[in-house]
């Protein structure tokens, strides 16, 4: 089928356009910047020509064929059908705490990135349907990220491994235990000399304790740890600076100036959720103050942290070390040569940091070598930040070996029994280790994981692992806080947890997950129960330690010379992480920030590199590094450092379920131990091939040259004139309406939403929260490429300025719930109309699918169910249990859209009316607002002048998107403020 989107951003045209440009101009894609004919068409139409898949035009025969089929289907579905009889199946003995028809909420925690993230899970009569952040957890603080939201789908994934496998034969846990017993007996005689256990970073203290017990029983056994997304540089940097491993705990809320060196601390960090909240609090002008922190970011590829920056400077990863050292030198924290190339940036940042001593943070990313981390520590100390914005705790890091040591032992034939608990090292190990072959050299090998992955295929045994929502465990957050992981549901299949497998290896008396964890936490029953109930164990936070940083000299051993030539940068996929979520349809279909690419992991290159090699989006290039080659499509990314290719690993899995099969490219093929994070000297060659990439960048465009939807300003301007936004927007008078006055009277609450563009970091958690809450189906790559993605809330990314280093703004767009809704006027069957609380309703059972409403929606927020997209959810038994019973599962041919989570409003309204009280402010929180880690989305009753939403609606930064159309949206925005350094010209930003 012919793809809708041709891959042809006319870069030269874009450059021409930019030359003659004055004042801010925003663009979402290079096509828009170039204002190509293609883009004009996408802007003016709901769907581009050919959307229905039959080519450019619709011929008479095609028309008759489609109409005939439609009529036949209409006849079939509406003819004499009688409602089928359904069963009603009560409990045998109903749990005391359960009220049928009402959900229960359980606190637990999700292990991710080596640490715990506190969550609260909604459970309907025993099946979990929604994951939210836990307010009492010090890291999640009630917010969540895309991985926490999507973990639910992993639980119900029908492709999960369901039985123990011995080679290609289905086996049983009992058979495995038999084999295990023999192996462990043999090892006992040899003091475990041939025993190796490979895990990911152990987030669970109980698991560490079990491992210690195992190593005590088998003293010569070895425990190895490998993570594809490694924090080793961070730890080594601490050892370099302090002589011991300490974990930095940042307080971004207290920082006035932040310098991030290739650090995506708002997303790819174990404390990212807390950072996001603190960072947002430090710049929440809408909260009444007019102070904002200032963020400088130096990074190779645009991340959401970079997009939140006031000054973002694209720089090759290998160049950042010298920049960091020069900054340290300027702050008197290291002896290093100055970086003359970036002198203006350095002096501005250094002066700003000096002016905010004790209230600043310098932070380095995990990709950067240990020395860079050591310099950041030295800088923070020199700036007097220790004890104020940066404090340290001592993590309990067990003594473990590395993956390369394990590979060497395997190659030497020293390993008789290999247990790989979790992870997928055969897929994600550096390719020079040839880990698949190495595993085959073990005498006995067993892998524990949730899906039958590449590692499972290489091992003799595969034991299916329980999901964290099915098993007892415990997990430590990065600040040390312990959470007990409690199961929401019994294991759906015959699975075991890592604890249970280790208990079997140990021959422990306790074999059930609960007993293992309960035994480890020897506390009073009341304390235990309280910990399980709260989701956090009281007073388990690690104490802070005093440290003193050593001065690290700048020399060749700390900073390898920057290799010339093209640089390859390896980063975890922004939606799939290290590949563990590759079979998760929500995450595959989630448009990646900045590129808006779905179902693919193209190599990101800069517009200049693309121009030099005459490449356009989707062109397949051959990358060569260290003698290895890889063919991969490219994506031109504004803001990407030049001469630098970002490869997102995690996609291109070979042994994966039906969702991830054949999606993306496995870039681990190019990753070796030596270029684990980045390395120069790669080569890029155009192959002439190209691949259609489903990006949503061009879809749902609402702005044009005449209609700017983004309002932006700088803090200094706002201080001078707080009303600058109001002066720049055209606001039709309130009474200008076609309706007669009082024709429609509002009653009860007037729901409204405020979205703060200053604090929104563009993490996309709202999109998946909505998808999970509202039973939104996944449509697949081909349908996405036709503009049919179903997500009710989208995040538009706007670029401003130069395509090489643009400023980036994220704009979440749910339904605006217009009071003068253009969609309502054109519906021929009254399927979309107002209720008295001002919600713009969509009544699915009335909708006949004319799509008039969607054509008339200036915000392009309506989604049409072209096919029966929910088919998989509807017919797969495991997925059925995941659906939110409070929300209708929509059928083919029905329009749908954001409802402000009307099911939550209804529940709150019913509860309030039964108690004869009003709904308090904050009594209803839609899924998007609840998920938002930055609390950028505020929802509430606009008829209550004291509600937070009302106050924000009166804020001088508030504006309506396309307010000049007089649609009177209930969803309004707070204009984006940035806080650039006056010492740097605006040109330095762009």
């Amino acid at each position, binding site marked *: 089928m012919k793809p809708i989107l041709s891959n042809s951003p006319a870069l030269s045209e874009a450059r021409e356009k930019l030359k003659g440009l004055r004042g801010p101009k925003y663009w979402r894609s290079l096509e828009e910047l170039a204002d190509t004919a293609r883009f004009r068409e996408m802007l003016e139409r709901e769907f581009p020509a050919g959307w229905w898949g039959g080519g450019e035009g619709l011929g008479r025969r095609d028309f008759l064929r489609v109409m005939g089929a439609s009529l036949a289907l209409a006849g079939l579905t509406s003819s*004499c059908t*009688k*409602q089928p*009889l*359904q*069963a*009603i*199946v*009560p*409990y*045998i*003995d*109903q749990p005391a705490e359960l*009220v*049928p*028809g*009402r959900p229960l909420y359980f606190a637990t925690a999700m292990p991710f990135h080596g640490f715990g993230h506190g969550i609260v899970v909604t459970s309907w009569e025993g099946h979990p349907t929604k994951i939210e952040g836990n307010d009492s957890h010090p890291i999640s603080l009630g917010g969540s990220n895309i991985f926490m939201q999507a973990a639910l789908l992993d639980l119900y994934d029908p492709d999960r491994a369901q039985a123990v496998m011995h080679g290609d034969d289905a086996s049983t846990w009992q058979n495995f235990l038999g084999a295990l017993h023999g192996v462990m007996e043999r090892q006992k005689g040899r003091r475990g000399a041939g025993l190796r256990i490979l895990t990911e970073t152990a987030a669970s203290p109980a698991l560490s304790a079990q491992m210690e017990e195992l190593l005590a029983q088998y003293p010569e056994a070895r425990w190895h740890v490998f993570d594809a997304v490694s924090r080793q540089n961070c730890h080594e940097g601490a050892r370099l600076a302090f002589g011991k491993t300490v974990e930095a705990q940042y307080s971004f809320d207290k920082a006035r100036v932040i310098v991030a060196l290739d650090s995506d601390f708002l997303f790819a960090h174990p404390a990212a959720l807390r950072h996001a909240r603190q960072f947002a609090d430090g710049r929440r002008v809408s909260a009444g103050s007019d102070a904002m922190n200032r963020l400088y970011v130096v990074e190779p590829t645009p991340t959401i942290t970079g997009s939140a920056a006031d000054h973002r400077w694209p720089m090759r990863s290998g160049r950042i070390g010298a920049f960091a050292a020069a900054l340290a030198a300027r702050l008197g924290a290291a002896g290093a040569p100055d970086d003359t190339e970036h002198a203006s940036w350095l002096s501005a940042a250094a002066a700003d940091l000096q002016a905010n001593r004790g209230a600043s943070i310098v932070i380095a990313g995990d990709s950067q070598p240990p020395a860079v981390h050591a310099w950041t520590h030295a800088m923070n100390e020199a700036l007097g930040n220790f004890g104020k914005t940066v404090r340290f705790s001592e993590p309990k890091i067990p003594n473990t070996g590395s993956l390369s040591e394990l590979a060497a032992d395997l190659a030497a034939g020293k390993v008789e029994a290999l247990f790989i608990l979790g992870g997928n090292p055969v897929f994600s190990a550096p390719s020079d280790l040839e880990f698949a072959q190495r595993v085959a050299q073990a005498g006995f090998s067993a892998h524990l994981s949730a899906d039958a992955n590449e590692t499972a295929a290489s091992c003799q045994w595969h034991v299916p692992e329980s999901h964290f929502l099915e098993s007892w465990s415990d997990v430590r957050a990065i600040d040390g806080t312990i959470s007990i992981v409690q199961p929401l549901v019994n294991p759906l299949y015959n699975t075991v947890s890592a604890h249970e497998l280790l208990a079997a290896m140990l021959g422990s008396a306790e074999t059930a997950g609960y007993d293992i964890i309960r035994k480890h936490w020897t506390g009073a029953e009341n304390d235990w129960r309280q910990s399980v109930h709260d989701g956090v164990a009281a007073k388990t936070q690690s104490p802070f330690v005093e440290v003193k940083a050593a001065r690290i000299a700048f020399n060749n051993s700390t900073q390898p010379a920057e290799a010339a030539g093209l640089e390859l940068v390896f980063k975890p996929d922004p939606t799939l992480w290290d590949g563990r979520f590759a079979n998760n349809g929500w995450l595959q279909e989630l448009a990646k920030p900045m590129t808006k690419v779905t179902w693919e992991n193209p190599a990101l290159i800069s517009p200049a590199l693309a121009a030099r090699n005459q490449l356009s989006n989707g062109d397949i290039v051959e990358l060569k590094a260290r003698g290895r080659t890889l063919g991969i499509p490219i994506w031109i990314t504004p803001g990407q450092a030049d001469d630098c290719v970002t490869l997102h690993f995690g996609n291109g899995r070979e042994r994966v379920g039906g969702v991830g099969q054949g999606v993306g490219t496995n870039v681990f093929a190019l990753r070796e131990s030596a270029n684990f994070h980045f390395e120069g000297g790669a080569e890029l060659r155009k192959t002439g091939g190209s691949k259609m990439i489903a990006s949503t960048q061009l879809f749902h465009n609402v702005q044009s040259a005449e209609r700017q939807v983004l309002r932006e300003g700088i803090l200094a301007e706002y201080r001078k004139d707080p009303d600058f936004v109001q002066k720049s927007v055209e606001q039709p008078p309130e009474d200008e309406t076609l309706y007669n006055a009082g024709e429609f*009277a509002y*009653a*009860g609450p007037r729901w409204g939403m405020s979205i703060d563009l200053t604090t929104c970091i563009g993490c996309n958690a709202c999109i998946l929260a909505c998808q999970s809450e509202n039973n939104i189906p996944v449509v697949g790559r081909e349908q996405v490429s036709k503009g049919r993605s179903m997500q009710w809330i989208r995040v538009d990314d706007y670029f401003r300025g130069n395509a090489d280093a643009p400023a980036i703004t994220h704009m979440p767009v749910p339904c605006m719930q217009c009071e003068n809704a253009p969609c309502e006027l054109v519906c021929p069957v009254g399927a979309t*109309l107002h*209720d*008295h*609380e001002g*919600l713009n*309703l969509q*009544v*699915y*059972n*009335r909708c006949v699918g004319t799509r008039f409403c969607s054509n008339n929606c200036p915000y392009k927020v309506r989604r049409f169910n072209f096919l029966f997209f929910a088919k998989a959810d509807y017919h797969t038994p495991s997925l059925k249990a995941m659906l939110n019973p*409070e*929300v*209708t*599962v929509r059928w083919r041919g029905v329009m749908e859209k954001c*409802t402000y989570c*009307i*099911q939550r*409003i*209804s529940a709150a309204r*019913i509860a309030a*009316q*039964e108690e*004869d009280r009003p709904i308090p402010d904050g009594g209803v929180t839609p899924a998007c607002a609840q998920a938002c880690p930055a609390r950028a989305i505020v929802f509430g009753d606009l008829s209550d002048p004291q509600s937070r939403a009302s106050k924000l609606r009166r804020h001088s930064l508030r504006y309506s998107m396309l307010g000049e159309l007089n649609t009177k949206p209930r969803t309004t925005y707070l204009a984006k403020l940035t806080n650039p350094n006056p010492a740097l010209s605006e040109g330095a930003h762009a």
Partner: protein
Amino acid sequence: MAQIFRRSSNTIARLLVVCGVLGPFGLAWATYVVYWSPWTTRVGSEISQPVPFSHKHHVQDDGIDCRYCHTSVEKSGFAGIPSTEICMTCHSQLWTQAPLLAPVRDSLASRRRLRWNRVHDLPDFVFFDHSIHIAKGIGCSSCHGRVDEMALTSKQAPLYMKWCLDCHSDPAKFIRPREDIFNMAWQPPSSQSSDGPKLLSQYHVNPTTLQDCSTCHR
């Protein structure tokens, strides 16, 4: 040359014209009749159940309150179907050997849930909530009829949207004092035309919002 049409063709042609005019009306009428007939709505038809449970016996003879079995009716959208244990609270003592109750005993013994057949089944795009109706003065019998007189349970109202709207457009006709919610014999008194509006304001029922689509659909 022979005639192509016989004389009877005239009659057939006239009949066809009449059918052509009346046919659509007839079809519409027939559809309406079928649509509202008990065959489609299942009004009054007793649906077979694993145990021929008699509400009449349990309510009238034994005097058991609705809420003894339908435990969540005041707290939740779903009224609740008694768990096997609730049945067995009495039936572990009474009629312990009755063959009719074998499925209940088997359920408890084999830990296999009973599968009752739904009598009142709303479409999946309708979100009905029992608790709010009870809190606002709509009693059981208003929708379910005289369940206390049913030996075998059947539905008494079609549960069509039109039927729901009869009350949602004018709840004053049906609202009753809260103390009569579970009174199966309650009938609107002659003073309902004045009592109804009083109860509406007393219970803070705002009829203007009751017909919003979002009241039941989402």
